[in-house]
């Protein structure tokens, strides 16, 4: 401000005005957020009511015998089974082991997918020759129903964690890879022009510009990938082994203990939701500029 204030006070007033404008904008946003919080509370009430209505109808239909409760368990039976599972989880019973087994498969497989997806995606986007050589195969591989490989993985990797992690990797790498590639070409023309005019090296351009620009895309890919990872782990557990929430579901089904199967499914869903949430929150922290980015280009 020094030189501004000495030479042209009118312009400094302009600064203050502009800054005031930005501040007003933020205040308005805050007001909107308050408003949306209220909408959120209303939504919650509506959503809980909808759930209660559906579960109530389900309970009545099964309790009166309109639907046989051997085939479709009553919500109250599921609730009891779920409660028992929760107690086991929090007291260190068998169910905790199953929960953790699936969690480890999903998380380890997912992390390996991140390394592979980002690594291969970066190679493909950085080296045209590599892209031309192998990208068609990658697209082709994605069209293969990889779930069908689950029985083969049993032969190759046994009944332990390995075949499950392998399955997770085969299906959750792809969304990460594709999004990494899309993101790495997301930097706009003017930015690239500017960087080139400054003599930016390829390495600097990658780390200082293209990678940060790719992060929003990458995180979108991670959100898809974590859900895929959960599906992959469960399917792999169906085909062999004696641990994990997928195995619990299958075992309960074979014994016709449907409330227990439903309870395991709820646990699987909860696990996936929590993991997905972690990614979303981490994404917001890492890409702190994203929500407001529109303003930069304004």
């Amino acid at each position: 401000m020094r030189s501004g204030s000495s030479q042209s006070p009118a312009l400094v007033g302009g600064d203050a005005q502009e800054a005031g404008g930005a501040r007003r904008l933020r205040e308005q946003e805050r007001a909107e957020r308050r408003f949306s919080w209220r909408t959120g509370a209303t939504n919650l009430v509506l959503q809980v009511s909808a759930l209660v209505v559906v579960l109530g109808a389900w309970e009545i239909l099964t309790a009166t015998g309109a639907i046989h409760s051997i085939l479709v368990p009553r919500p109250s039976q599921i609730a009891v089974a779920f409660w028992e599972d929760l107690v086991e989880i929090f007291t260190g019973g068998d169910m905790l082991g199953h929960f953790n087994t699936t969690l480890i498969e999903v998380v380890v497989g997912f992390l390996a997918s991140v390394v592979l997806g980002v690594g291969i995606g970066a190679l493909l986007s950085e080296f045209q020759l590599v892209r031309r050589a192998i990208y068609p195969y990658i697209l082709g591989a994605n069209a293969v129903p990889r779930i069908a490989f689950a029985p083969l993985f049993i032969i190759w990797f046994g009944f332990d964690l390995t075949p499950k992690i392998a399955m997770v990797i085969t299906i959750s790498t792809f969304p990460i890879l594709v999004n990494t590639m899309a993101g790495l070409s997301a930097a706009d023309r003017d930015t690239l022009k500017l960087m080139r005019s400054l003599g930016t090296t390829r390495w600097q351009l990658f780390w200082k510009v293209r990678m940060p620009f790719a992060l929003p895309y990458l995180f979108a890919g991670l959100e898809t990938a974590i859900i895929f990872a959960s599906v992959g782990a469960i399917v792999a557990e169906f085909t062999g082994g004696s641990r994990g929430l997928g195995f619990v579901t299958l075992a309960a089904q074979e014994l016709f203990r449907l409330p227990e199967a439903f309870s395991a499914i709820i646990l699987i869903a909860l696990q996936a939701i929590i993991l997905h949430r972690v990614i979303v929150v981490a994404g917001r922290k890492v890409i702190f500029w994203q929500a407001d980015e529109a303003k930069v280009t304004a």
Partner: protein
Amino acid sequence: MDIEISGLGKTYVPRRGERIEALRDVTASIRSGEFVTVIGPSGCGKSTMLDILAGLTTPSAGTATIGGRRVGDPSVRPGLVFQRPVLLPWRTALDNVVLPAQVGRNPSARNGGRRKVQERGQELLDLVGLGAFGGKYPWELSGGMQQRVAIARALLLEARVMCMDEPFAALDELSREQMHLEFLRIWSSQRFTVLFVTHNVFESVFLSDRVLVMTPRPGRVVADVPIDLPRPRKREMIGSDRFSKNLRRLREAMRAFWE
């Protein structure tokens, strides 16, 4: 540093389709410290000319030198300012200003270390009137303020030449007028050479020493109109007889557009 452009031509030869002659036989000479605007309709090769000066594309014919050296030489790097501020949203204003000193070969050795660069960045933010905003992110600043950060960034590497491609075109009328005065103040205190592309007639009269008029397809300089207004330029000059006379002369030179 002066800019010498001589017989400059650029033809794009696409793999398919017709070749496009963007520039033909452009010759211009811009003295050190001069403020020259280039005016012309879209597609007249103005941006191609700036790209050549910035070393981003090579001419098909002719030469361009800055301070006696061929453009494209790493020692000749004009500061670039675009229509959009082109700031990196994950960097604060100050970090955006010092970006040019963090890239290229051996950036820290070349620019005298981090602390020196930061100090220089802060000086430039002071110069453009944003001394107190160094820690703000681009999205916390108004459009005019963002563009000022871009100007500070262009000045970081002691650029003696500024190439500006419609830098104020995206601003609203009032901010633009303010930026004109602000930028003239910065220019008069630093006295770098400016090549300023615009399609705004008033802007070119108000800012420059000289206006080059270009016509499209192929881009050629058809007129070189000196602006006869005293410096420093003041807001009150707009609408004065002398201003109107210059404006009329420029519009006369631009006749070709409407015919």
